[in-house]
């Protein structure tokens, strides 16, 4: 069973995602900010990480940069799922850290998201 880490501070998103992924046969682990996310990622080595950007304590950007420095993190599948448009200054650095996808929460259909995750190796 594939394992997915969701790093998301907004509970409504977190719960729904968890629900839909579980329904589609994934094991889900959760984290509420980047700092927690790093710890869980290194411990659980999930097959993919769904990562929000704007979060308290540690942002998704910071977490991704740190993640890319570890052995596991170097090649981990990371799907950025956010409401921030990808042209904001801050996102240049995100793109340097090569997320697998950059998706807008308000644009993507959940079914599309799950399809994308299904296709990940």
């Amino acid at each position, binding site marked *: 069973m594939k394992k997915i880490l969701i790093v998301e501070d907004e509970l409504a998103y977190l719960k729904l995602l968890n629900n*839909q992924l579980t329904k589609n046969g994934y094991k889900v682990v959760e984290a509420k900010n980047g700092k927690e996310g790093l710890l869980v990622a290194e411990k659980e080595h999930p097959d993919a990480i769904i990562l929000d950007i704007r979060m308290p304590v540690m942002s998704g950007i910071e977490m991704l940069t740190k993640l890319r420095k570890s052995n596991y993190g170097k090649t981990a599948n990371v799907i950025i799922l956010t*409401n921030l*448009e990808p*042209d904001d200054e801050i996102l240049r650095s995100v*793109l340097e850290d090569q997320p697998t996808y950059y998706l807008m*929460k308000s644009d993507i259909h959940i079914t599309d998201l799950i399809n994308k995750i299904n296709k990940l190796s």
Partner: protein
Amino acid sequence: MDQLPHESLSEIQERYRSLVENLQIGIYRNTPGPKGHFLEANPAIIAMFEAKSKAEFMKHNVSDLYQNPNERQEFVKEILKKGQVKNKEINLITLKGKKIVGSVTAVMKKDKDGKIFFDGIIENITKHKKTEDELYEYRKDLETRVKSRTQELENTKEAMLNVMEDLEKAKGIIEVKNAKDEAMLASIGEGIVAVDNLGKVMIMNKVAENMLGWKTKEMLGKKITDLKLENEDGTFIPFNRRPTTRALSTGATIKVTYFFVRKDNTRFPMAITATPIKLNKKAIGLIEIIRDVTEELEIDKAKSEFVSLASHQLRTPLGIIKWYLEALNEEAYIKNAPDNVQKYFNEIFKSNERVLSLVRDLLSVSRIDQGHVKNIPKLTDVTKMVKNIADQMKILARKDDIALTLDIKNKEIPLINIDSLRLHEVIENLVTNAIVYSNPKGIVKITIDQKDDNIILSVEDHGVGISKKDQVKLFTKFFRSQNAITKNTEGSGLGLYVVKSYIDVWGGKITVKSTEGKGSTFSIRLPIKMKEGEINK
């Protein structure tokens, strides 16, 4: 000295006679009385009066030789009174009628009988007199001329004074006008700088002085282009891009906003409107109106930041609604619910999508207005992108039985370095419009081709079309054409504004051909070699 030899009396007499007869001066003896007659006359006087002989001369009265008989009486009276007259000028006349002037010196004498007679000498001074007269005339003429010159000078002087007076008056009028102009210039809230055809400063008002930090006296005759103008990021505006240079060379009014660097190196955003002053269609100078737009930019920025923040905050709950509706839609109790429940459900979903799309557009506009659109180019396969969009859009097209066709005229269109997310937004926007404004069972055709160094992409529909009047405003913010409003009440009027803003940044072009009731074709041209830049106002 040699002593004179002794001479006989007759010898002496002879010598005197010879002397008298050979002298060039007339010698005479005559009697007083109104007419007078000659008692003696030497040959010189006879010749002087042009008499043929002494006998002829002696026959004439003395008064006959006067031009004016009264003069003779005056002369006689004077001699009788004074006993002598010296060098008296008398106007005489010869026996042949020639007028001469004689200078006469005469003494009164008495003979042994007590009879009075005059002995006199006379010199013909007519020539002297004439020269003298000429001299006199000449002098008189000179005097006249001097007088007339003096008069002329006087006149000139007076004329000059009049001119000066007029000038003073004119100066007064001009001063009043200047004072008015200055008051007007000073009371205008905008800074005004007038420059000549070389960009040299001629006039500056107080507001401009305060704004620029330069006094008029310091700037007079200096080129306005010597002052520093830069972009927001501090890069220097080159001479040929300066509004002054552009307005002078093109003859058109140029409106721009740049940062001005004051003398003390502080800077501020300055809106410049450079309007050429034209003479015979040639720009002979400029009036530059300058305005400190710091506050405006701050307000603009605050507004855009507010919109941006509000939009981001709006997205989170809207996104949650969307996701939960989608999740619900998968549930059997909705799938199997009565028709009206499904209908209500769809309405909720559609409305939510509408708000999301409006938020997206508002964000795009606020980013464009803030100049915050960063071009993040990456190598993009435009053909592939168009195919994907066409596939996605088929669902929307199917609702109204609209056929969406794709015509790839050139199979080897190269990859271009472009911000693919934005390009996606642009194409999606155009295709959505074409579908939304088509009539049911219509055809929407997307064509892609390459012409020279450009990719040409066009989207053609056979829908409501756009009137000529509306076509002009089509790409402005919040504008919606009348036909569009009638057909679809939901649009924000921002889509084409955003589309055009992006295409402008890429150095491309968007054009529209449309006939009301027959449909529209939007074409975009994208240069294969992209220009780098930011979206700005």
